[in-house]
């Protein structure tokens, strides 16, 4: 475990020393004290503004043969608004006039701004009235108009590991498949593991499939084992039973009570059948003719995570963002024995101690499940977006690395007390493709008594993301 951690830290330090600080271009920004801004999440209103921009352009670009224009001035048209664009309404605080100050639309770095004087030309009074009444439709607070540099905008739009609403509408990786509709404001998610709750790859004991919104996700856990690019022979995941359906959900609340911190919660559980007789020693296996593989099976009854992410107020050269995520983790594992008829029996022990000549039992010997509250801690660091160290730029063999909207490196350290530690490094080779490596090490004893999780493992990963 220590070797893996050191290896990851060495990579991080190496990259840190090699980096040079990048320059960030300033962009138009508004004073947060004077304005308030929100995104329009109600799709019918989004469409109204899209159409209004098209109409405005039509009225100002097409020739009118019946009227001779007095001058041939070049007409300034607006960029068309796309379905996936953020639509941001800006209103002046404490203004006596209830009116839209500006409208911003776009994504990432590129935002088009409709100034106050043009708002009246483009949008009817009725639409303006509807948009300004923000308590009548779905919207969310936005800080985009207040960012003072490109870097700040890129960082804000760069998805956090906890984000339920990804930056791109398509993401395929060795851990998940994410597809988002530009029109319906929903996404479909398939996950082949869940590193955030300490259960990567097949250790998650299911494949989850769900539907997501900006702040929530709900779905089904299928008993399917998908474990891609797992390195090492100690995975030992046959002690996890994958035969039962379950449900899961995730929720996030951004900018909790205007503190800038984001709250994340997720949980999942399995529906498994009742089990009656209690197996207290190995004689039960012999009496009931239990096969070796079914003697010590475990079911992830339930997992839950409550965490809060906030940006750490630290400035490190070459590091654009450091986020801390403290939280609480809960897991409950049912320890069972399975017979040939798939009937389950409660099991209160997990091994035999030849020294003391007694069975090693869970808790006081009457427990057939383990449940543990653990402290959750995670630190994420990312290098500056679009900045590469000079040695990469100069080396012709590394010219395939070309990043503009992503950081070169993303590093994370995650520890769940009494469960495990997962460290990961992600290399982005361009804005769409990245390679990753995650190391895993279990906490000795703790929740994993009976070896239902491996001692250590490593996963390699590939991620492709794009917009369609």
């Amino acid at each position, binding site marked *: 475990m220590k070797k893996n951690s050191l290896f990851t830290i060495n990579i991080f330090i190496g990259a840190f020393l090699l980096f040079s600080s990048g320059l960030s271009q300033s962009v138009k920004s508004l004073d947060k004290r004077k304005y308030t801004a929100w995104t329009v999440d109600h799709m019918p209103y989004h469409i109204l503004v899209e159409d209004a921009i098209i109409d405005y352009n039509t009225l100002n670009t097409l*020739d009118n043969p019946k009227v001779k224009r007095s001058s041939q001035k070049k007409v300034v048209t607006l960029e068309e608004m796309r379905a996936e664009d953020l639509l941001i309404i800006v209103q002046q605080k404490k203004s006596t006039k209830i009116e839209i100050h500006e409208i911003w639309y776009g994504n990432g770095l590129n935002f088009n701004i409709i100034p106050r004087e043009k708002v009246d030309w483009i949008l009817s009074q*009725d639409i303006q009235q*509807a948009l300004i009444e923000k308590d009548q439709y779905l919207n969310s607070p936005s800080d985009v108009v207040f960012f003072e540099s490109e870097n700040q905008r890129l960082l804000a739009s760069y998805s956090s590991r906890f984000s339920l609403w990804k930056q791109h509408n398509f993401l395929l990786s060795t851990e998940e498949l994410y597809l988002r509709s530009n029109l319906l404001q929903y996404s479909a998610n398939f996950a082949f593991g869940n590193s955030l709750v300490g259960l990567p790859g097949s250790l998650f004991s299911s494949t989850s499939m769900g539907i997501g919104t900006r702040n929530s996700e709900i779905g089904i856990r299928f008993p399917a084992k998908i474990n891609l690019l797992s390195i090492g022979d100690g995975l030992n995941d046959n002690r996890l039973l994958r035969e039962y359906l379950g449900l899961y959900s995730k929720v996030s609340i951004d900018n909790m009570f205007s503190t800038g911190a984001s709250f994340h919660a997720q*949980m999942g559980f399995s529906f498994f059948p009742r089990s009656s007789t209690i197996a207290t020693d190995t004689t039960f296996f012999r009496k009931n003719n239990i096969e070796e593989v079914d003697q010590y099976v475990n079911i992830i009854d339930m997992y839950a995570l409550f965490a809060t992410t906030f940006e750490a107020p630290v400035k490190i050269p070459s590091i654009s963002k450091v986020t801390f995520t403290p939280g609480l983790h809960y897991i409950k594992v049912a320890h069972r024995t399975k017979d040939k008829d798939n009937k389950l029996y409660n099991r209160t022990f997990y091994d035999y101690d030849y020294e003391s000549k007694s069975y090693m039992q869970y808790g006081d010997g009457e427990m057939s499940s383990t449940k543990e509250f653990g402290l959750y801690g995670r630190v994420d660091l990312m290098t500056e977006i679009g900045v590469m160290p000079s040695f990469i730029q100069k080396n012709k063999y590394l010219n395939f690395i070309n990043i503009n909207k992503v950081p070169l490196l993303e590093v994370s350290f995650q520890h769940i007390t009494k469960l495990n530690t997962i460290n990961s490094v992600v290399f982005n080779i361009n804005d769409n493709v990245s390679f990753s490596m995650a190391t895993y090490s279990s906490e000795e004893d703790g929740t994993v008594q009976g070896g239902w999780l491996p001692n250590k493992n490593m996963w390699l990963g590939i991620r492709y993301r794009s917009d369609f």
Partner: protein
Amino acid sequence: MNMKMNLNTLINKIFFLTIIFTVLFGSSAFSQQNLISWEVADPSLNRKFIEMYLNKLIENDKFDQNSIQASDVIMVQMQQEDGKLTLKRLRAKNYDSGEYRRFMMDQVSKLGPDIMNTIMDRKYKWAEINRRDLSALESYSTIDNILNERSFKRARDGFWWTTSQVEVSTNQSIYIRSKSTNQAFRLETGISDLGLYRQFFGNTILGLSNDISSTYFIVPRKLTDNNNIKQPLDGTFGIGFKFDTHSIGGQINYMDSGNKFKTGRVFDENHVVLPSASGLVYWSNTFAINNFIDFSNIGFLKSLNKSISSANKKGKAFGSLRLKVGLSFTEFIHAKLSPGSKEEKEGRELEIIDRLNKVDEALGFFVRSEIVTDNKKLKAYAQANQSFNGFSNLGLGLEYSIKVLKIGVEIVRIPKGSGLEFLESNSNEDLWKWYPAGESGDQIVSPYISFHF
């Protein structure tokens, strides 16, 4: 039938399809005849144009044929055809009389390009035109003005949390909502969407919510004695999440059956029934409803609240109707408290006897309709839950607001035979039946009052 529904889904789909059609096929047919219509909302431009027009009529000795007044409002319709844009129609609308008047286009064309360009370029304040205006422009639309659509939010806020900042109710709910951050603290009882009403389910929900999602702890509580309920559901500590958007919503809840139970906190220590894990997904849509009951004529309400809003006048859209249809999945556990000390402080574990969690045991249907009036004074709901395992119930609720006070009533109907069959014990295959309101069923009427600020 006076109730008329505005089919939002259909309208949305038409809009989406129109856009998709335009994008995919370049819409050559569509672009050949595209009309853009509006009303001039800049009073000085209205006056300037009409004055110029009237002067032109006087100049050409045509004023006696004129019907347009200086106070009229101009309506413009442009036509986009084969890459060209032409002025198709121009009308003057008189708001006082509701009349539409025609301009003499031969005189309009003499006004000069400057004023015409100003009118057609639309670089001034303008307003949408309604269906009636469109017919005056000899155009007809099958698409309703999207601004007339019901935003689901008004209907949703009334049931998702509260439309006020603080609401405290004797129906065992408290909401404290910060409108500046769109977040709220919630305390509720029961999990009503799953048909597990507070009247027969011993739990309290403590949570944090935003507009879309909510996360909460589930805390057990002892039910107050109720003659209608023979065997309530027991509760224990757990957590839950729920979310609600304009078209889909759902929730999942988990209560840990591995917790220790205090003897006095369960209804019957030999038969503990616990909805240990549950989930729900639903589709929803919101419709506008017209006023089919004139509330201003109801004497009782008149006396309670003399200032009935003008929004309640008969014939006008006065509220939103939200329909939800979904599937639920609830695992019920039948257990007994393990033998041991009956000391209340100690608590005892559950010995689980049976789990109903197969698809044909746990799956159920959920239908709910919610009505909220535009003035937020009245809200009502009706809900039905029916599961494959035989447990079903109906819920109805009505609430009326008078200034800072709300009075309401909830009715929960558990039909005859509604219940669940469990194995009686681990040692035999006999069945034990759980009927929350007895085998003959019953209904519970729960009036309440709330204060909101």
